[in-house]
């Protein structure tokens, strides 16, 4: 396979090759491997990977496809690589960030110091869709609300890694990260001999430890369950995967009940059995019809009551989503300075807050060169990418922003970095992002790498699997080569 025709561009950072098509530091063996492999050989490996995905039953679900709701996971065999020396700094940055975010959530539901000191404006919270007044006065174990966080990182032209967003509600993707590694071990075994690649399959163990540590009965072996909205949820595969790997029960709302004693029980053939920790994969609004959405049949009546009494632990805690708002995001560097008295290790993407008149003016004037995002959406829904939109959509966007400025932020366009990707008949650059997962309770843990999502369409910057994205295995590589 020739990499000579691989087109790098001066505006875009490629993770494997420099402008001169030379392999970056430490990645010579991977580049050499790609150069000497024929298209036929790579296609055979791709075929093996597809076969593995089918037999392992790795699927994700897309809404509105009627009967056939399970789709096979789209995977590219060429890995995305990061050297360990760089990763260690990223790891520290991610832990620092989540620590500050958890301080922030505790603060806004209790002392409101950061608001009183006017570091974060009060009206931003008042209008936050994910601020839960039911959580005021609550203090979960270790002051941690977001126990599991998926933070999206992107790399700009000059190689700087930026934080794009923090997913603190019910971040998904970790099972695909783990399965991607299993597949690439099967189809590229020789590269694992050349490189020291940090293993990642201990994640379920760390997740279980994190969840156990917040059990209200610390001395006993805790009953941990994964609460899923059910088979029709797009991440059902992951829910069942994690439950299986942790040896926890996978439950639906109707499997649980809150007793008169305000403890949570699951219904088993042995009778009712007490539950200590719920790793919930249901959004706040559906958790408890007694408190939130009255129509919800997914949740458990009385759950919030039991949680507030400290009889059951919820991960992530209800209300944690208040920090998962794109306007609040813009204040994270300030939070780090405020709570930790440290400089942020990982920078934010510079952002314009439309609710601030000066920013709003700038956004409306330059909208064609900006990315505009709704404050409370995830999965890439509702996103506006200036240079690519029609005039009609631009006018529509301006109208939406003006009618509800609080709901939007805008950012300059970051030229996401690229990674060589096996396309129809050649290897071509495709844009990627990276979602590492961070766990926090009494200790913090960061996955070695994360889920690399890749926009499979040429030139596209949209990496979401619901919108035609795929994924790659992510290798964190030891800087010194394997000896012998």
């Amino acid at each position: 396979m020739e990499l000579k025709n691989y087109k790098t561009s001066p505006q875009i950072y490629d993770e494997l090759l420099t402008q001169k098509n030379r392999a970056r530091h430490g990645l010579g063996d991977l580049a050499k491997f790609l150069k000497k492999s024929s298209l036929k050989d790579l296609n055979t490996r791709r075929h093996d990977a597809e076969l593995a995905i089918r037999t392992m039953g790795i699927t994700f679900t897309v809404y509105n496809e009627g009967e056939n709701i399970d789709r096979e996971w789209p995977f590219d065999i060429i890995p995305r690589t990061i050297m360990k020396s760089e990763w260690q700094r990223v790891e520290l940055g991610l832990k620092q960030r989540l620590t500050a975010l958890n301080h922030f959530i505790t603060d806004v539901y209790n002392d409101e110091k950061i608001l009183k000191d006017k570091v974060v404006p009060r009206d931003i919270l008042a209008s936050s869709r994910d601020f839960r007044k039911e959580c005021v006065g609550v203090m979960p174990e270790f002051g941690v609300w977001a126990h599991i966080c998926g933070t999206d990182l992107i790399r700009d032209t000059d190689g700087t890694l930026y934080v794009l967003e923090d997913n603190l509600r019910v971040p998904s993707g970790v099972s695909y990260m783990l399965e991607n590694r299993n597949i690439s071990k099967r189809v590229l075994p020789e590269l694992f001999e050349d490189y020291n690649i940090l293993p990642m399959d201990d994640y379920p163990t760390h997740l279980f430890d994190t969840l156990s540590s917040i059990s209200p009965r610390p001395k006993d072996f805790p009953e941990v369950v994964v609460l899923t909205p059910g088979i029709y949820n797009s991440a059902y595969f992951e829910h069942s995967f994690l439950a299986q790997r942790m040896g926890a029960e996978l439950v639906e709302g109707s499997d649980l009940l809150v007793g008169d004693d305000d403890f949570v029980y699951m219904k088993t053939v042995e009778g009712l059995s007490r539950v200590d920790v719920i790793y919930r994969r249901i959004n706040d609004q559906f958790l408890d019809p007694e408190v939130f959405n009255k129509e919800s049949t997914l949740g458990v009546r009385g759950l919030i009551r039991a949680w507030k009494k400290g009889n059951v632990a919820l991960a992530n805690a209800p209300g944690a989503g208040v920090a998962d708002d794109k306007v609040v995001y813009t204040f994270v560097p300030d939070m780090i300075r405020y709570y930790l008295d440290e400089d942020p290790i990982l920078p934010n993407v510079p952002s314009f807050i439309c609710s601030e008149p000066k920013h709003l003016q700038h956004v409306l004037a330059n909208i064609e060169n900006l990315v505009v995002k709704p404050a409370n959406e995830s999965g890439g829904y509702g996103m506006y990418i200036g240079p690519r939109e029609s005039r009609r959509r631009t006018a529509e966007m301006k109208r939406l922003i003006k009618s509800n400025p609080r709901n939007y932020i805008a950012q300059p366009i970051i030229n996401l970095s690229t990674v060589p990707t096996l396309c129809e008949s050649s290897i071509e650059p495709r844009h990627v992002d990276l979602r590492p997962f961070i766990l926090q309770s009494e200790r913090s843990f960061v996955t070695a790498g994360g889920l690399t999502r890749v926009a499979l369409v040429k030139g596209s910057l949209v990496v979401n699997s619901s919108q035609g994205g795929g994924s790659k295995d992510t290798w964190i590589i030891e800087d010194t080569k394997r000896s012998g």
Partner: protein
Amino acid sequence: MLSRVAERMYWFGRYIERVENTARLINVNTNLMLDLPKVKYIWGSLISITGYEEQFANRFSSADERNVVKFLLEDESCSIRKSVTMARENARTSREIMPNEAWEKVNELYLYLNKNINHGVKRDGRHKFLIDVMNQCYELTGYLVGSMSSDIAYYFIKIGRNLERADMTTRILDVGCLNLLNPDHPEITEYENILWMNVLKSLTAYQMYRQHVRVRGRGVNGEDVVDFMVKDQKFPRAVLHCLGEVQRCFEALPNAEHPLRSVTRSQRMINKNDVIVLLNSENLHAFIDDVQLDLNDIHEQVATTWFSHELGGP
């Protein structure tokens, strides 16, 4: 184990068994029709076996071969298609409990059925189609026996399978009796031998019956068939055998007191009645009704004991 998962396993067992039984029922009756071209109303009796006469009447005006087979293959109420869909749905939502290959086999069956169901309607493709469906069910059951630990999940599949089996046996016997005792069609008695053989074949019991019921001069007759199919302890589709299997599963489960009591009562009732006396006095239908009521009661006990929970704490 979660009650919901146990319930899904139970229904999975029942639906797979129902698919196999319904397929065999259609197949055996298709063969019977070739022997008894004069007896038209036999197709209608298949609808009586399912107990969905009303749903059938809503959709079709006459109980001829085509309509009955269509109904049993693809109607929304109790057809093979419906049962496979339900079995698949139950398996799909308990994938973390069942061996992966079992899920794949259910899925294959589902895809096969949806692709080929038209072959089942016409006589020429029907035999192969139904044999394929039955074979896939055997394969699946065999796979579960060979690869699932004898733990709670497996017990619930087995309870479901055996209750469904006993239920189907009583239904087939019941209709057999009704046919033969039908005063509107006295001509049927001349075919008694063939009809009872047909009942046995519907229950895969003909060979075993021949080996185990050794009487001469009476042919294959109602008394012996019903006695064998209800009271035999060893034949897998005989009611008492099924109840024995269910009982052994109950004994291995927690809190089984009520279901056990219920199954023992039913066994005692069956043992107490002399089938030959019943048949002569035309009380057989009432007896089979009693057995069916008992099977319903056992199902209720299973559901209240293991699948549902009272609110308000342990």
